[in-house]
Each structure stands twice: as C-alpha cells, then as structure tokens.
C-alpha cells in the first residue's frame, strides 16, 4: 500500500437502510495536495468524511488514512488529522479557549505543557484572540466556524479535513479561509476540503473529486479536469429562440440559454451557448446569419469548470439536494 496517499478509499459504500449515501467510491488523495471534494448538497460528501474519520462504519470497502487502516488503527493516526465535519460544535456554556482546551485534552497525544500556548496560537491564526474568553453561546455563526477551524489546527497536522469550511462566513471570512488553506498547504499539510460551491475552492485546489448521488463521477488534477471540458460556442443575439433552433439543426449538442447574471446589456440581447462538437465556429456563424439570426457577438471558449461540473453532476452547485 502506498504511503504517498493521504486518503485512499477502495469501493467505499455507506448505506442508510436501502439508500446508498456513498456508493462505491475510490478516492485517491495524494500527500501534499489540496483536494477539492465537490458535489451538490446531499451528494454524500459529509457521509464519506464521517466514514474516513471512523465516526461511521463502512457498509463495504476500505479506508486508509495516511497509510493506516481505518477504523482499525484510528488511535494511531487520528491525532495527526485535524477536521471540521458538518459544521463546528462546541459546549455553549464554555469559553472559546476552554472548548479548545477540552478537545485538546481528549487527544491523548497532545502534550499538556504546551496546551495553553497551542490554544492561543490556534485562536490567533483564525483571528479569534479577542473572543477567547467569551462563552461560545455568544459567538456568531462565523465566529463558531472560525473556532471550528482553530480546533482543527490545535496541533501540527499532516492532514486537514475541512467539510464546507466557508459555511456561514462572509466574503472576507471566505478569503481568509482560502489564505489559511494556502499557507497550511505551503507548509506541506495535505488539505481535503469539501464544498458545494465550486468557486469557493477552485482557486486553491490542486486536485478535485466530484461527487454526484453518492458516486465519484470525476477525479484528478485540476488541469486534467479542465482538459476534459469541451469547447463551446457562445453567441450574443437578439433572437435566442431562432439561434438555438439553428444550432440544433447544425447538430450541436447541449444548446443552452445562459442566465443573464452579471451582464449589463441584457435588455434585448441574450447569451446562447452550445457544445461545438467539431463544427467550425465560422460555419456556425454563416448558418446563423443565413437564417436571419441577429448576432451581436460570437466566440468560443473551453467552457468553465462550472460547466463541466454541471455536466458531471447534472445540476447546479447551489441546488439543494
């Protein structure tokens, strides 16, 4: 078995009754990577993480964490893993610092003599030093999320598992988390970060895995995944319906009327896109104009990652599952 992998699952299945929330996935998370674990809500990301960390047992398949068999050798490996699973959780009647001290005490490998210093440092890293003595009951959602990340950083870790770490954070907080992940990765920590929002992790990942309905539908480096996307034709037109008909006629698959989000001149012009499917863009242009479609602009691109994820998962990333 390779020790070059931080996480490796083989045919991992987790069933709840008859429903397979995780349906035979083979995760390969190389050491030193920042792995974006993507998928719509309900696609099985959190369940996978629970099984990887030994919180839930696998219905079938196996897990190796940092080269160690889980859950059999959990006690020998989990102390090297920091994690945020399905949102942070704390004792509301204890202060932020007291909560971290309690979690650190639970870790048998964490030395007591450096506890206070490590708690202070973790709080500082997430910008919560000022609220260290405040009861968690009085924390905002964003502060709890930061405290959860601080708990994952209590000790030097080889692997961080962050399940939707930017939930509840404002854009500024989201940027801070990204910067934090970057700096941890620069120190050599492997980061496994799940999200249902591609845009939130796209910029920091070296690798991606895409979940859909309990299956891992794609996995690889970010560049591999980018390479998989097919060139698309995009046209700006005043006659979207007619344009789509023409493109269909040319045999271009996946013809779509794009949403108008973020474009200022949407009063009369619309964005239509389609998979080029080997047709030369100039030929498409001629056909459109010949059919009387009023074209304002025409160009091709390789499709955004977002497009390929939508194609892989069959739904938008912010759709609740």
């Amino acid at each position, binding site marked *: 078995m390779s020790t070059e992998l931080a996480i490796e699952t083989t045919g991992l299945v987790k069933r709840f009754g008859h429903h397979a929330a995780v349906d035979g996935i083979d995760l390969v998370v190389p050491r030193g990577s920042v792995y974006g674990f993507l998928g719509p809500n309900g696609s099985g990301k959190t369940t996978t993480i*629970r099984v990887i960390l*030994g919180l*839930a047992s696998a219905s079938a398949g196996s897990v190796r964490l940092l080269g160690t068999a889980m859950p059999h050798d959990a006690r020998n490996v989990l102390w090297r893993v920091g994690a945020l699973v399905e949102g942070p959780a*704390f004792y509301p009647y204890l202060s932020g610092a007291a909560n971290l001290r309690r979690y650190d*005490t639970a870790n048998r490998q964490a030395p007591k003599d450096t506890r206070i210093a490590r708690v202070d440092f973790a709080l500082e890293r997430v910008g919560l030093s000022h609220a260290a003595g405040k009861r968690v009951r009085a924390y905002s959602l964003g502060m709890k999320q930061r405290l959860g990340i601080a708990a994952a950083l209590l000790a030097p870790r080889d692997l961080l598992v962050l399940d939707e770490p930017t939930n509840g954070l404002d854009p500024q907080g989201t940027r801070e988390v990204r910067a934090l992940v970057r700096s941890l990765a620069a120190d050599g920590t492997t980061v496994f970060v799940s999200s249902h929002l591609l845009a939130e992790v796209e910029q920091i990942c070296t690798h991606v895995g895409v979940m859909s309905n309990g299956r891992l539908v794609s996995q690889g480096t970010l560049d591999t995944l980018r390479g998989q996307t097919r060139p698309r034709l995009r046209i700006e037109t005043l006659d979207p319906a007619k344009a789509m008909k023409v493109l269909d006629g040319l045999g271009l698959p996946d013809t779509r009327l794009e949403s108008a989000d973020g474009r200022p001149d949407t009063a009369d012009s619309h964005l239509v896109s389609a998979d080029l499917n080997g047709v030369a863009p100039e030929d498409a242009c001629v056909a459109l104009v010949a059919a009387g479609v009023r074209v304002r602009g025409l160009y091709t691109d390789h499709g955004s990652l977002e497009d390929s994820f939508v194609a892989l998962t069959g739904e938008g990333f912010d759709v609740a599952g």
Partner: protein
Amino acid sequence: MSRADGGGLLVSELVTMFRRRRTIALLSVLAAVPVLIAVAVKLSTSDVQPGDGPAFLDRVSQNGLFVAVTALVVSIPLFLPLAIGVVAGDTIAGEAGLGTLRYLLIAPVGRVRLLLVKFASSIAFCLAATVVVAVSGAIIGAILFPVGRVTLLSGSTVSPGNALGRAALIAGYVTLSLLGMTAIGLFVSTLTEVPVGAMAAVVVLAIASQILDSIPQVSWIHPWLFSHEWLGFADFMRDPISWTSTQRDALLQLGYVAVFGALAYSRFTTKDVLS
C-alpha cells in the same frame, strides 16, 4: 508528539460538569431538601409522633443530626434519581446532541476511554449529590436543633463524632445503591442523540422499579430490582453495624454495572456517530 496526560480528560470532565450551571442547580435543589425539612419541623407547634412522616422525622427535634438521615430518606425515591438521571442520561447523548461527540472521537478520545470517563464522572456526581444532602442536613440540623449523643435504632447511644462517621457510611451506601441506575443511564445515553429523552427514560425506570418493588404480587422480582436495597441503610444505625444489606446491595449494583456497562460498551463502540 510525546504521550502525555492520561487522567487529564477525567479532570476536564469533572471541572466541566461541576462548573456547569445545571449541575450547580441540581445540587442546590438537593441541598434545599434538608433545609425544607428542618424548617418545617422547627416551625410546627406539635411534636412529630413516631411513625408520622418519613423515617426518622420524629427524632429530628431531639437531635439535629437526624435531619441528614431524614433528608436522605426523603431524597432517595425521587430527587436523587432525578438528579442522577439528568447527569447519567446526558453523558453520551448530551455530547451527541451538541455535536461535540464527533469532535471528541476524532481528537481522538477513544470510545472506551470516553465511556469510562463518563461513568466515573457520573459516579462522582452521585457521591457529590449524596454528600450535599447529608452535609446540608447536618449543618441545618446543628443550627436549628440541639446536637448531642445519638440514640441508635438498637437503643445504644453514640457520640456525635461517631454519628457523623455513620452518616458518612450512609452517604457511601446511598452512592453505592445508585451505581446500577448510573450504569443504566450510561447505556440509555448511548442509544439516542436526544439527552432529554435519555434523562426521562432513566427517571421513568427508577420510578417503575420502585413501584414494582411495592407490589407484593411480583415479590419474586423484588430482589432483582436495582432500587430494592435503596433504603437498606438503617443497618448503619445499629450497634454493632450490620453489613448484610451492604453486601446484598453491592452484589446487586455490581450486577447491574456489569450488565449495563457491557451493553453500553457494545453499543457505543459500534455506533455510527451521525449527529
């Protein structure tokens, strides 16, 4: 990192528990029980006749130390089981309900270690609860009533110091008596993520056990009920002290601890933590 800090978690657990406002409230209610009894007796104009009210109540006005014993008698059927049901029922279910259980487990705390620490802290709470009733009773008794030589059930008298020693033994006996219920609470707590449900279940079991114990038609089951020896501490009020109740009780409670400890272990070590 070096191995460190074996007993740290128990200390953390105890500090967290005894600092918690809910624990303090429970102990305050228990401390109020003897005060209520003592004040009621003090204010009443007529003497309490032997046989009236809870056991030993008639002796309170002659000797304040009996407030402690009477308060224990009064607390055993409901107040102590209620308090312990809250604490023991909360052990695992409370952590699951808060979601902190998953973070303890991935720390990693070790499931067996967590279970043992939770059981130990619940026992510490039983002891604290019993001692609070006894000490509060002794103090309020000494304030409101004369304290002198104590006449035992066997007729002989002992010094107040000797009587305090016996009161400590009684507190120990009551704690021992509650171990079986604590183990049941620990087990029930591994079954749910809703702590209130676990607490209610434990209290209901304690009451059901006492009801069964009072129905002669099912007398065959009486020796097996975990509440059967709860009031057996009168043995400590005799000279010489008889240990037969204690032995029976210890055996019974250990049986419950073994059975429900094993159930809690097998449930908790295989449980999916999904909260």
